[in-house]
């Protein structure tokens, strides 16, 4: 067998092994398998302020660290956050102000600080307030 072909075979074996292990890991973490998550986007809110808040949530890339209804980074879900915090607390969490700041790592607090000048901040708070526990 040509030596090049042997190298190709071993690379293909690696690819197969890695994809299989990756799929296994993913299946163990998500027993329902692919497509289990509800991908349907909730309808646009009727209140224009809440709609503007949701657009701001998308525009600012909040889903990099947060998820809503399973969409986004599942590390810090925001489902029901409107039931847990009032408007002032939500605002503090968004811009990394006290008292929320004490619970945030320094680097994240710094990143959040820039949202203090965000013109849609009030709208974003209004949107988060609509995320209530059913």
């Amino acid at each position, binding site marked *: 067998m*040509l*030596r090049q072909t042997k190298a190709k075979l071993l690379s293909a074996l690696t690819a197969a092994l890695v994809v299989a292990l*990756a799929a296994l890991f*993913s299946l163990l*973490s998500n027993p329902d398998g692919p497509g289990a998550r509800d991908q349907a986007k909730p309808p646009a809110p009727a209140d224009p302020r809440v709609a503007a808040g949701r657009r701001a949530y*998308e525009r600012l890339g909040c*889903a*990099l660290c947060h998820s809503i209804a399973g969409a986004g*980074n599942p590390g810090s879900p925001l489902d029901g956050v409107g039931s847990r915090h009032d408007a002032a607390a939500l605002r503090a969490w968004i811009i990394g102000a006290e008292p929320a700041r004490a619970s945030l790592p320094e680097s994240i607090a710094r990143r959040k600080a820039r949202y203090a000048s965000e013109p849609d901040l009030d709208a974003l708070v209004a949107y988060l307030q609509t995320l209530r526990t059913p």
Partner: protein
Amino acid sequence: MAPALAAAFWIAAYLAAVSAPLFVLLAGPTPPGGGFWRDFAMALGFAGLAMMGVQFFLTARFKRATAPFGIDLIYYFHRYLALVALAALAAHYVILRLDDPAQLGSADPRLAPGYMSAGRVALLLFVLLVVASLARRSLRFDYDWWRITHAFFAIAAVVLALWHIVGSGRYLSAPWKQALWLTYGALWIALVAQVRLLRPWRIARRPWRIAEVRPERGRVWTLALEPLGHEGLRFQPGQFVWLTARASPYALREHPFSLASSAAGNARLEVSIKELGDFTRSVKDLRPGEKVYLDGPYGAFSIDRHPAAPGYVFIAGGIGVAPILSMLRTAAERQDRRPLVLFYGNRVWERVAFREELERLGGRLALKTVHVLREGPAPASCESGFVTREVLDRHLPAERRPLEYFVCGPTPMTRAVEASLATLGVPSARVHSEIFNWV
């Protein structure tokens, strides 16, 4: 350790290194499921980076790890594995993007956190690395420049990627998972230090002096080298060295060449180089007395790996004759009387390098040389055209199965000869080839 066992060990070690990050993910506590596709993409990202890390090891030229395979195969593997790793990393990004673009956050580096921009730049660098390497010849990149930038971008890409995964954090919450990646990172840095500093330092301490620059037929130049203040190097006939000329070993401007001289001779070595590229065209300008550096020997293409064979068959195309010449010269000095056949393909008779010496070797060895020429007038004893199945069949002895076969030449020739030998009933385990143009 037997070569087959050693090969199995190193393949297992390599598969373990590549899949370790995935097993670490599997071993609890796993973060709550983030959706199948998201977690699948994350796992591919980890595995892709682990593979890219193994790439450093593959080209670090560890003799123990490369010996069972032959280093040409390792470099080919480096090339194919790069494609697999890049595919995994690209899939990591594309799947996340298709799953939900919002979870990638803003692509604007002013808005995105540093670790996300680091990941994007790393992916871009990996694409550049692979494209530049695969298209190096067609884009006519200077080989030395390519080697330096390849190493630099590879290190930059891996460092950025490590920043990306440590910054993303979620899957590495347990300290021992972070420890695994920090260990990987430290290992990679140690490998880079070994390749860029430690090995050049060892090479620099054992310089060689050019004793002679000799022209051969067919624009081939032979450099004779003598050790300067050390005992030289022991090698198996057919192996090769990395040669550095008119540069410091730290500059990493090395080029691989087969040793053509006898392995049974004195400390003086010879390499025979054909004018093919930028560096090889400059070999004739080297002068006796100049200092050069050698790293080696490397390679598994040697009769000494198969000492018990009842005889050997060599099939050379052009300058692919160099390692075979070393085996023939060595056999002559050892007064080996076993039957040998050499098929030697060239374009025209006047440019057949070493043809006079091969004739002389025929007097000292039980060697039959079959010249195969593509063009022009030639002695009646020569075959014309290519080294085809018919040519092989005409000149191979009847008892051809137990012989060991060594093929060295351009890839199309190697491929064709291997196919022909298979149809002539030669077991593939007895056919050894060395890839000719693997860098």
